[in-house]
């Protein structure tokens, strides 16, 4: 049991934190997000060159620093605290996680590009008629000689408008709801310069990020576009999605730390009826409940992060536990931060309004609370819980007379 960061990890945290404090302000970042560019490329470059967070968790053989889950957590939390919109999780956690597992020279080249800040990756998986995060895929890739022919429509492809590469999940065998039979393809991508057989609709999201709907009409891909083994994308997706989920949980912790601190500060300062509103017991207890949700969230993010290396079921259960916890907390803290700020909390004048939107969006990302509740239930042994690793519960004989 150890909840302290190593010296290097602490150093990483303070590097990221002080960079963001100095260089990442809310106003300009919103302006950039809402501009036609949609982000701040110079910030991304600084992430790579000045504070090295794009390489921090990548393997050493592609120019990375070999950091692990804790490093990802530290970075994501700090990015959350500053409400960074640039595509860290989709590129560095999810994208790189898939590429790393897929292996091969093409993947390796992209990983090197990620480490140096040149490449950004978006994963195209959800479809208009599929249950979100359910791996329900109708988009197909069929073999035609040496090539693959890709056909189908993807929706809400996060960060696609900024991406240099797409990772597309397509069905190469099996029925639409079959968890097997999926394959992963790597495509060059530039939303501003598209081939005729790819149609992209880009849009802003409610939290000032960007996404796109993408239609593939018989797009021909070379054989080497296939990453990993055909029909087995699930074995890449499962762990990489769990890593991404753990990372957004950490990001949510950062978001909540900020809005909670702002709320308590506001309650001490804002006066009504001749006293600070923070002196009213009903509001005090509400803020205590927010504090409790935050402390639970921190623990849940640890749980997910520190179980990423466990066996698949333990890993998935811990990640689902975390996402359920964080989603609930994000809603409770977000909504109450707004309520306690009163009307001002509903405007874009204060940080809380912007953070609230991200806290709303994050609840739905990588599976909403119900998705993860059901997954957790399915993974829990019906009779008695299996050991959740060394520190988990060991069920004794529970039968009684």
């Amino acid at each position, binding site marked *: 049991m150890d909840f302290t960061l190593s010296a290097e990890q602490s150093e990483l945290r303070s590097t990221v934190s002080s960079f963001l404090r100095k260089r990442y302000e809310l106003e300009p970042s919103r302006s950039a997000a809402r501009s036609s560019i949609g982000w701040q490329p110079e910030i991304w470059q600084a992430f790579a060159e000045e504070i090295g967070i794009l390489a921090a968790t990548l393997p050493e053989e592609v120019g990375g620093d070999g950091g692990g889950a804790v490093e990802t957590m530290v970075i994501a939390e700090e990015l959350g605290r500053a409400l960074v919109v640039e595509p860290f999780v989709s590129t560095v956690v999810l994208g790189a996680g898939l590429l790393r597992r897929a292996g091969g020279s093409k993947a390796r080249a992209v990983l090197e590009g990620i480490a140096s800040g040149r490449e950004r990756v978006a994963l195209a998986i959800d479809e208009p008629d599929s249950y979100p995060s359910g791996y329900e895929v109708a988009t197909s890739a069929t073999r035609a000689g040496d090539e693959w022919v890709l056909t189908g429509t993807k929706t*809400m492809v996060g960060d696609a408008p900024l991406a240099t590469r797409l990772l597309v999940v397509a069905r190469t065998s099996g029925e639409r709801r079959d968890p097997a039979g999926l394959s992963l393809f790597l495509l060059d991508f530039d939303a501003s310069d598209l081939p005729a057989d790819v149609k992209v609709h880009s849009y802003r999201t409610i939290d000032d990020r960007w996404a796109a709907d993408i239609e593939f009409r018989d797009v021909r891909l070379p054989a080497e576009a296939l990453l990993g083994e055909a029909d087995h994308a699930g074995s890449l997706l499962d762990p990489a999605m769990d890593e991404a989920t753990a990372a957004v949980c950490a990001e949510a912790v950062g978001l909540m730390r900020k809005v909670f601190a702002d709320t308590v500060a506001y309650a001490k300062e804002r006066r009504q009826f001749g006293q600070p509103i923070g002196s009213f017991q009903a509001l005090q207890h509400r803020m205590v409940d927010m504090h409790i949700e935050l402390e639970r969230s921190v623990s849940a993010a640890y749980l997910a992060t520190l179980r990423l290396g466990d066996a698949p079921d333990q890993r998935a259960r811990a990640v689902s536990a975390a996402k359920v916890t964080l989603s609930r907390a994000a809603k409770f803290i977000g909504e109450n931060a707004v309520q306690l700020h009163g009307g001002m909390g509903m405007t874009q004048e204060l940080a809380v309004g912007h953070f609230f939107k991200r806290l709303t969006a994050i609840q739905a990302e990588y599976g909403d609370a119900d998705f993860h509740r059901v997954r957790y239930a399915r993974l829990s042994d019906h009779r008695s819980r299996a050991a959740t690793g060394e520190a988990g519960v060991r069920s004794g004989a529970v039968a009684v007379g």
Partner: protein
Amino acid sequence: MDLQYSPADEEFRDEVRTFLEENLTPELRRAGRLATSVYHDHEASMKWQEILRRRGWAAPGWPVEHGGCGWTASQHYIFSRESTIAGAPALSPMGIKMVAHAIIKFGTEEQKEYFLPRILTGEVFFCQGYSEPESGSDLASLAMQAVDDGDDLVCTGSKIWTTHAGEANWMFALVRTTRGPKKQQGITFVLVDMKSPGIEVQPLVMTSGEQIQNQVFFDQVRIPKKNVIGQIDDGWTVAKYLLEFERGGSPASAKLQVQLDEIAQAAANRPGPNGPLLDDPLFAVKLADLRIRCDVLEVLEYRNLARLSEGKNPGTASSLLKIINTELSQDITVLALEAAGPQGLAYQPHATMPGGPVHDHSPPQDGYVSGEAWQAVAPLHYFNDRAGTIYAGSNEIQRNILAKAELGL
């Protein structure tokens, strides 16, 4: 005891239905259905007001001599309920439902003659100047300075949360004419011409991106004393009288039931974990819970209506209903957002009909919408509806009122 309408009420309801069927154009219904907050598309709303005015139904709550309908409490409820169910746009409450009642009760003959007909036609469109940056829940602490200067009051300060200040040509406001030991005293209720020199409207951008609320700055604005309603220094009396019209006046259950119907219909066509989302037991039960809360709210409203019909004072019922319906409404927006799925995260105000301009948004040139319009409404409605528990006396304040007035604590 029964839950039936009387035959006369049924007849009235049919009359209303027929009228709505004949007069609600698809465009007007669209404004009702794609609204993202309690503020509906301004143009559609004013168009509908004009149609109602021609039928004599724009201001049913006014005394008959001023153009009201002389309806019973049931008839008001039925009219409001049927309009909502049919998808009619909501009218702005500021003029017809609020300041007009103050003018009728406390106004001079000149004031009545000038304002009432113009409010009906929309020639005069009001906004409300109550809250100030430092006076929210504690409204009576308001500080907008109004100095007596001959025939005028000269006002300096600012008002906030001024809905539709950009569209309005008049404001009704509370200003501070005298400072005394009791903060409720020394307040004056005035009507302000928005074209008066010294007024500056600064829109507030909400999290939804919509600019419906504003901050209005007053710099030495001259308000003729003939535009005072009631007595100088006695504006709190007028404001308290109006408060009754603001809280729990109209039925909320109908609107919420329609929203739940829409969610159900949408969920029948959205993918769930195992077939349509509507067949997912977890989703179905959440929907059932909200519908049940709506059914119960409807009966609460009928009970309140029955009390009003007997000429009784609603008492604390308006606080109770405000808490119940705003919290239920918020929970419904949460379920709608959940039903919307990933498309609910797309920011697409161009697919909706918001109550005002949208800041910093350029619709795509091809008008593309990811998913359907209701999915675009969902997040904006969720954001805007957070106001429900904050405005018109936050729910914390309503609970304080109930604790004191209802429970004697």
